[in-house]
């Protein structure tokens, strides 16, 4: 096996693990109805990547991702502050942080390329994702962080489920709800950052949102939903890597998102019970039973609705 092929395989495995972890962590973001939080964090990362390069003069992946993580946390911090100290609502605050931080990232990036700063080439890959440039060492870093994140979610599965489902009950029974909330958001931020090289700042958020939403179609329990979301994220990530390996100039992010979207479409239409076709069949069945009088207005009508 040639060195190049080996590198491609290692990178593919790492990106697959990133896709898996993003789906797992993203499930709690979706269940807690915080899907847009990842969006604000991901758009802030670009400014972090460029700043990390400007400050350190290095462009190795860990340095750039550390910068991205700091920027993501800063963006989320500003989001919390806007919500807390102004009367701005969640969606507006998210849009403000997202837009402003991304604008800053683009200005910094354009400034670098306009002035032809030496060694700045390649930073633009963080915009749309570009896995071909990753080394085996980078791949190990990404896979390692992804594995750690999945382990943390597994450890706190009970607590995360409780807080996502019923925060008031959790707080009343003594759980530190704000702390657990921040921890979940921080995990989403970590996955947004390690998803950056593969999916890019603009689209990485889709990697933590689409797979969970698709997975929810197939199951009524949390643990299977996490596993399935992970599997869908994994397949989407591999799809992206394969496409950009086949078409050299194709960025990875858009193909990952489109693969995930295709899996979502299948889930939306064909899932048993929650799928569009299944729901149509159930509606028809209910109408028939109502017409024939076999379904009365008793307590159990919730069964079929």
């Amino acid at each position, binding site marked *: 096996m040639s060195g190049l092929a080996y590198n491609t395989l290692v990178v593919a495995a790492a990106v697959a693990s990133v896709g898996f972890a993003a789906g797992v962590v993203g499930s709690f973001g979706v269940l807690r109805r915080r899907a847009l939080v990842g969006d604000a964090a991901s758009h802030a990362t670009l400014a972090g990547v460029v700043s990390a390069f400007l400050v350190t003069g290095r462009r190795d992946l860990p340095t750039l991702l550390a910068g991205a993580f700091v920027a993501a946390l800063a963006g989320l911090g500003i989001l919390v502050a806007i919500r807390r100290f102004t009367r701005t609502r969640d969606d507006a605050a998210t849009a403000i942080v997202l837009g402003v931080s991304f604008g800053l990232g683009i200005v910094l990036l354009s400034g670098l390329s306009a002035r032809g700063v030496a060694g700045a080439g390649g930073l633009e890959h963080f915009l749309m994702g570009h896995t071909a440039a990753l080394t085996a060492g980078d791949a190990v870093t990404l896979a390692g962080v992804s594995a750690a994140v999945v382990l943390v979610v597994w450890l706190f599965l009970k607590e995360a489920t409780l807080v996502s489902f*019923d925060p008031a009950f959790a707080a009343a*029974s*003594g759980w530190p709800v704000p702390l657990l909330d921040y921890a979940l958001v921080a995990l989403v931020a970590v996955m947004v950052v390690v998803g950056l090289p593969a999916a890019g700042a603009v689209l990485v958020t889709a990697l933590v949102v689409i797979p969970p939403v698709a997975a929810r179609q197939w199951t009524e329990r949390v643990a299977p939903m996490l596993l399935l979301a992970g599997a869908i994220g994994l397949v989407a990530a591999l799809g992206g890597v394969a496409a950009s390996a086949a078409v050299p100039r194709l960025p990875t992010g858009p193909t990952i998102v489109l693969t995930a979207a295709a899996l979502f479409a299948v889930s939306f239409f064909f899932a048993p019970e929650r799928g569009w076709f299944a729901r149509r069949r159930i509606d028809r069945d209910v109408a028939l039973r109502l017409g024939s009088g076999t379904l009365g207005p008793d307590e159990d009508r919730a069964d079929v609705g």
Partner: protein
Amino acid sequence: MPSGISTPTLAHTVEWHDVTVAYGRRPVLWNIELSVSAPGIFGIIGPNGAGKSTLLKAALGLVPLAGGSVRLFGRPLAAVRDRIGYVPQRETVDWDFPVSVMDVVLMGTYARLGWFRRPGPEEHESARAALERVGLADLADRQIGRLSGGQQQRVFLARALAQAADLYFLDEPMAGVDVRSQERIFRVLDELRRDGRLVIVVHHDLRTAAEWFDGVALVDMRLVAAGPTEAVLTPENLRRTYAGRLDVLDEIGAAVERGGRTP
């Protein structure tokens, strides 16, 4: 106050001392001074926006107090959290959440389990017993969205039973609930009372209040009156509580005077 043997510590089971709560600059509760002792079923009654739920949340530490203090079993909340069960309003959660009836009831055992430990046979046993008590044992594996409103409310009650508490706070447990579930819920509350527990219920339906509660507090941002149900639910007190909302009131007041029967 409802009659009955007071707790061994001599303190009242729940005491709100001069409690004031504000959301932002808008005060919702003013200088509430109220004590209730076990055992019994105690109603908190008042119009919409009167701060009834806030009064519960103040006792549970879910809203910051702008003034005053709350003591439970004569002690601060943090020392006695494991003796308290809570049933939040049904609409506060997403019933499409991917959990089964059993999963939700098991959440009542989580505080006992602490960090990282998962529910074992013992927890499943107590959750199943709680489901038996509310009459939902055969629906344990069903996703919670596939239940009627009354069944969902009973799931929440079962979760509180799984907390194995001495003091229960229920926020509007009868709202949007069918008659069969209401009767079942009340039967469970009655059992808790017989076991010496105190159950505090936020309630909006005056017609059932006289029938169910040993004692009530009438609240309209301030405490209007509190004490044994028949002494408190007078037309005069109700008029003061529901001031400006009088059209339905004379009718209800008359019903209460007749002994709590629906007109």
